C-alpha cells in the first residue's frame, strides 16, 4: 500500500473514531437530561447549526493536520531512510543519510550512517585484498611467461584433453611449421603423436620417474620429447607438460664425427698402401733402374702430400664438433666477466675489478666450467702468492678472445702454472675435472706472462661465437601488452565437451578474425586474392602472437585502383606461394574457430570461388562485424571500420594490410561482443539471427555497401 492510501486510510479511521466518540458523547448527554432540556438543546442546536458544523469541520481539519504531521515524521521519514540505505548497500557506498526529523528518526539515521561507514571500510579492505591477490597472481603469471620465453627448450603445457594452455617462443619456433599448429586452445596431438603421449604418461604412472623421455621426428627435425604429468588436487591427471629439444644438430654432429673417423681410417689406408708398396719395392730391388726409382719416390711424395692435405681438411672441418659442443653456449663477454667477478669475490676471496669491454663480443663457452676453473686459479693465486686483487678483462683478437687475469706481483713460472692447471677442481662439474681440461675443451690455450714491470697476467684464449646470435627474444612480459598471451590457464577448466556451435556462448568461442586484399572487387570476373591476414581470439583475448600473414601470387595483374588502397605492387607478389598453397594453411590456422570479418561476405565470396580449385571448404560459422555493428548501433548509418573504431574507442594503426585490418577488426569485434551480451545476445545462434535480421533490413534499405 502506498503512502497516500495509507495516509487516507489513517485519516478516515481517525475521523470515524472521533465522530463515533462525539456521537457517543451526544447520545450520553441526550439520555441523561430531562425532556424539557432536550427540547431546549434541540432548539439551541438548530439555531446554532452553522456554528456546530464549523466546529465539526475545524475538528476534522485539525485531526487531518495532526495525522499528516505524524505521517511525515514517523512514516515517510523511515521510508526515505530505507530507500537510501538500500542505495548505500547496492550502488553507492559513499552515500550518507541526512540526519533530520524527530529524535528517534535522527537516531536511526545516525546508526545507519555508522553502519555504512563500517560497511565501506570493510568493503574497501576486501576489494584491496582482492586487487592485491589478483596483482600477485598476475605477476606470478608474467614471471612464468618471462621465464618460459627465456628458455631455449620448447615447452608446451596442455590440459587433459591435449589443448595447449601455455607455450613459449622456443616452442613456436621449433614446432609451428606449418603455421597454426602451436596456439592457445589448439590440440597438441597435431604436433606430437597421441599414442606417444599416452605411452609416456602410462610409463610415468607405472614407474617411479617423474617424467618420461621419447624421441620423435617431425619433418626434417629429430626431437627429444620429455613428458611429465600435471596432477589435479585429487591426484587425477589434470594435464601434462611437454618439453621438446631439437636433437637434429646433435645427431648431425655425431654423424659427421663418424664420417670424419671413416675418412681418417679407411681413406688413409689407400694412400698408406701405395707408400708402403713403393718403399718395399725399392728396398727389395735395390738394383732397379734410376728412372723406376724416381717414379717410386715421386709416388711416395705425392701420397704423403695427399695424406697431409686430407688431415688438414679433417682438422678444419672437425674443429667445430670435436669438442663437447653442446656444453658450449654463446655468452656476452660482459656477462662472463660479471659472473667471474662475482665468483672471485665470493668463492676465491679475491677482490675482482672488471675492465668494462668497449664493444660487445659473443664468446662460445661452457660458462659454468670456465667460472669454476678460473675461480680455482684465482684461489691458488690468493692462497700461495698472497694476491688480493685481480683485474679481469676481455679483448677480441681475430677469431678469439683474450681473457686476462692481472695482478700486481711476479708472474707464475710455467711449472707452477702447469701444476695448478692439473689440480682437480673438486666435485660438481660435468666432464672437465681440471683447469687444463676446461681450456682444452674450449679449444683454447692458457699461459702466464709479466707485463713489463706492471705486474703479471694469466691469459686464456677462448673461441668467439661464429655468428653473433640474433637479438634475444622479446620478453613478452614487458611488451606493449601488460599481459602476455603465451598462456591461458583458464583453459584448464574449459568446457570439456563442447555443445554444437550454435548453442555455445559467444564469450567462450574461439575466433579467427581475418581479412584479404584482392586485385579488384569482382571475383567472378577473375579478381584474385593477393594477401591474407588473420589473428585468433581465444577466451576473450586477441592473441597478437598467433597471427597468419601471407602474400599470394595472383598469377595476374593488380588493378591500379586496388594498388592504391593496399600498396602491394605486382613485383612484390612474384614468387610468393599461390592460393592453392595458402588456402590450406589458412584453413588449418582457422580450424575449430568461428570466422569473423568485416563485410565478410566479400571475402567469403573469394574463398568460395576457390573451393573446387584448392579443395578447401571452410564450413565453420561466420560472423560479420559490419552486421553486428548494425545490431548494436541501429541508429548509426556509418559502419566502416574507421567509424566503428572511433565510436568504440579503438585506435587505428596499420590499416590496409590484411593483418593490420584483421587485428583492428578483432579489437572492434571484442567490443561488439560486450555490447551484444548487454543487449541479451548471448549465444552464437542469437548473434547470427540478430545479424540476419539487420542484414535483411539493410538490404531492403539498399545500404549494404563495402565498408
Amino acid at each position, binding site marked *: 500500500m502506498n503512502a497516500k492510501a495509507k495516509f487516507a486510510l489513517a485519516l478516515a479511521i481517525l475521523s470515524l473514531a472521533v465522530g463515533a466518540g462525539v456521537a457517543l458523547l451526544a447520545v450520553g448527554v441526550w439520555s441523561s437530561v430531562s425532556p424539557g432540556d432536550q427540547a431546549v438543546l434541540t432548539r439551541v442546536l438548530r439555531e446554532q447549526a452553522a456554528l456546530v458544523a464549523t466546529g465539526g469541520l475545524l475538528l476534522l481539519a485539525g485531526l487531518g493536520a495532526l495525522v499528516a504531521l505524524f505521517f511525515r515524521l514517523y512514516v515517510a521519514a523511515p521510508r526515505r531512510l530505507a530507500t537510501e540505505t538500500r542505495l548505500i548497500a547496492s550502488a553507492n557506498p559513499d552515500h550518507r543519510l541526512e540526519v533530520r526529523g524527530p529524535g528517534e528518526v535522527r537516531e536511526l539515521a545516525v546508526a545507519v550512517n555508522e553502519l555504512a561507514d563500517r560497511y565501506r571500510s570493510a568493503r574497501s579492505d576486501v576489494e584491496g585484498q582482492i586487487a592485491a591477490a589478483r596483482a600477485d597472481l598476475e605477476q606470478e603469471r608474467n614471471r612464468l611467461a618471462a621465464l618460459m620465453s627465456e628458455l631455449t627448450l620448447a615447452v608446451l603445457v596442455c590440459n587433459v584433453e591435449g589443448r595447449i594452455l601455455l607455450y613459449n617462443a622456443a616452442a613456436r619456433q621449433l614446432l609451428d611449421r606449418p603455421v597454426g599448429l602451436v596456439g592457445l586452445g589448439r590440440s597438441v596431438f597435431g604436433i606430437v603423436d597421441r599414442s606417444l603421449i599416452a605411452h609416456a604418461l602410462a610409463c610415468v604412472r607405472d614407474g617411479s620417474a617423474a617424467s618420461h623421455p621419447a624421441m620423435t621426428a617431425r619433418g626434417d627435425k629429430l626431437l627429444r620429447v620429455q613428458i611429465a604429468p600435471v596432477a589435479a588436487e585429487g591426484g587425477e591427471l589434470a594435464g601434462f607438460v611437454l618439453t621438446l629439444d631439437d636433437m637434429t644438430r646433435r645427431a648431425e654432429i655425431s654423424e659427421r664425427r663418424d664420417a670424419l673417423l671413416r675418412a681418417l681410417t679407411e681413406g688413409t689406408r689407400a694412400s698408406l698402401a701405395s707408400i708402403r708398396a713403393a718403399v718395399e719395392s725399392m728396398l727389395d730391388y735395390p738394383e732397379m733402374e734410376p728412372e723406376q726409382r724416381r717414379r717410386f719416390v715421386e709416388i711416395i711424395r705425392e701420397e*704423403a702430400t695427399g*695424406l*697431409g692435405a686430407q*688431415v688438414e681438411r679433417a*682438422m678444419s672441418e672437425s*674443429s667445430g664438433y670435436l669438442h663437447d659442443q653442446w656444453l658450449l653456449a654463446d655468452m656476452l663477454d660482459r656477462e662472463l666477466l660479471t659472473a667471474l667477478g662475482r665468483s672471485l669475490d665470493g668463492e676465491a676471496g679475491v677482490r675482482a675489478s672488471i675492465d668494462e669491454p668497449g664493444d660487445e663480443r659473443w664468446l662460445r663457452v661452457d660458462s659454468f666450467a670456465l667460472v669454476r676453473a678460473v675461480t680455482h686459479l684465482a684461489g691458488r693465486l690468493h692462497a700461495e702468492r698472497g694476491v688480493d686483487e685481480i683485474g679481469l678483462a676481455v679483448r677480441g*683478437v*681475430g*677469431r*678469439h678472445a683474450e681473457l686476462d687475469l692481472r695482478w700486481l706481483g711476479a708472474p707464475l713460472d*710455467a*711449472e707452477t702454472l*702447469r701444476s695448478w692447471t692439473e689440480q682437480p677442481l673438486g666435485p660438481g662439474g660435468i666432464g672437465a675435472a681440471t683447469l687444463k681440461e676446461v681450456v682444452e675443451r674450449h*679449444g*683454447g*690455450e*692458457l*699461459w702466464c*706472462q709479466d707485463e713489463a714491470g706492471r705486474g703479471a697476467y694469466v*691469459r686464456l*684464449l677462448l*673461441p668467439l661465437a661464429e655468428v653473433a646470435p640474433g637479438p634475444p627474444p622479446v620478453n613478452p612480459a614487458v611488451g606493449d601488452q601488460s599481459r602476455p598471451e603465451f598462456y591461458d590457464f583458464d583453459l584448464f577448466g574449459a568446457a570439456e565437451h563442447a555443445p554444437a556451435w550454435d548453442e555455445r556462448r559467444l564469450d567462450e568461442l574461439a575466433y579467427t578474425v581475418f581479412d584479404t586484399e584482392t586485385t579488384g572487387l569482382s571475383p567472378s570476373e577473375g579478381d584474385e586474392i593477393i594477401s591474407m591476414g588473420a589473428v585468433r581470439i581465444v577466451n576473450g583475448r586477441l592473441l597478437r602472437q598467433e597471427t597468419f600473414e601471407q602474400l599470394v601470387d595472383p598469377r595476374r595483374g593488380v588493378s591500379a585502383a586496388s594498388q592504391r588502397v593496399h600498396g602491394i605492387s605486382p613485383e612484390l607478389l612474384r614468387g610468393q606461394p599461390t592460393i592453392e598453397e595458402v588456402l590450406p594453411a589458412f584453413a588449418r590456422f582457422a580450424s575449430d574457430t568461428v570466422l569473423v570479418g568485416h563485410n565478410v561476405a566479400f571475402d567469403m565470396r573469394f574463398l568460395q570461388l576457390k573451393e573446387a580449385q584448392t579443395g578447401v571448404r571452410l564450413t565453420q560459422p561466420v560472423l560479420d562485424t559490419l552486421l553486428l555493428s548494425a545490431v548494436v548501433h541501429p541508429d548509426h548509418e556509418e559502419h566502416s571500420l574507421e567509424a566503428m573504431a572511433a565510436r568504440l574507442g579503438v585506435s587505428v594503426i596499420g590499416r590496409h594490410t590484411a593483418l593490420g585490418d584483421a587485428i583492428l577488426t578483432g579489437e572492434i569485434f571484442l567490443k561488439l561482443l560486450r555490447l551484444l551480451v548487454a543487449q541479451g545476445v548471448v549465444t552464437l545462434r542469437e548473434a547470427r539471427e540478430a545479424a540476419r535480421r539487420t542484414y535483411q533490413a539493410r538490404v531492403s534499405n539498399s545500404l549494404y555497401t563495402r565498408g
Partner: protein
Amino acid sequence: MASKVLIVDDEPNIVTSLEFLMRRKGYETRVAADGDLALEEAERFQPDIVLLDVMLPRRDGFEVCQQLRATGRSDLKIVMLTAKGRETEIAKGMAMGADAYVTKPFSTRELVDRVAHLLEGGS
C-alpha cells in the same frame, strides 16, 4: 763460422730428416729429445736457432720457449713445430716468443728456406 741449430723433438724419424737437411745446408746441429734436455743443451751449445717441437715429454715446447726467451740470447731464433696447428696454439706460440710457427707435415724445402731466412736476420 757455421750457424748452430738445436733440434728438439722426441720422434727420431723426423729428427733424422731434420738433421740431414740442416747438415746439408752446412749448419752445425745438436739434438735434444725432451724439454729439460733442450734447456741444458741450449745452455751448453749456444745455438743460433732452435727447431722446437711443441709436444715434448716433461716440459712442453711452450715452456722451453718461454724459458729460452727469459734467459737465453736475445738474438736466438726459435721455430716451433707442431702437429696440432690450432689457431689458439699458434697465438700462444707467438705470445711465448717464437719467431715462426710451422705445422706438421711441412714441405722440407720451405722449412729450410725459412731457417736460412731467419739466420740471415729476417723475420
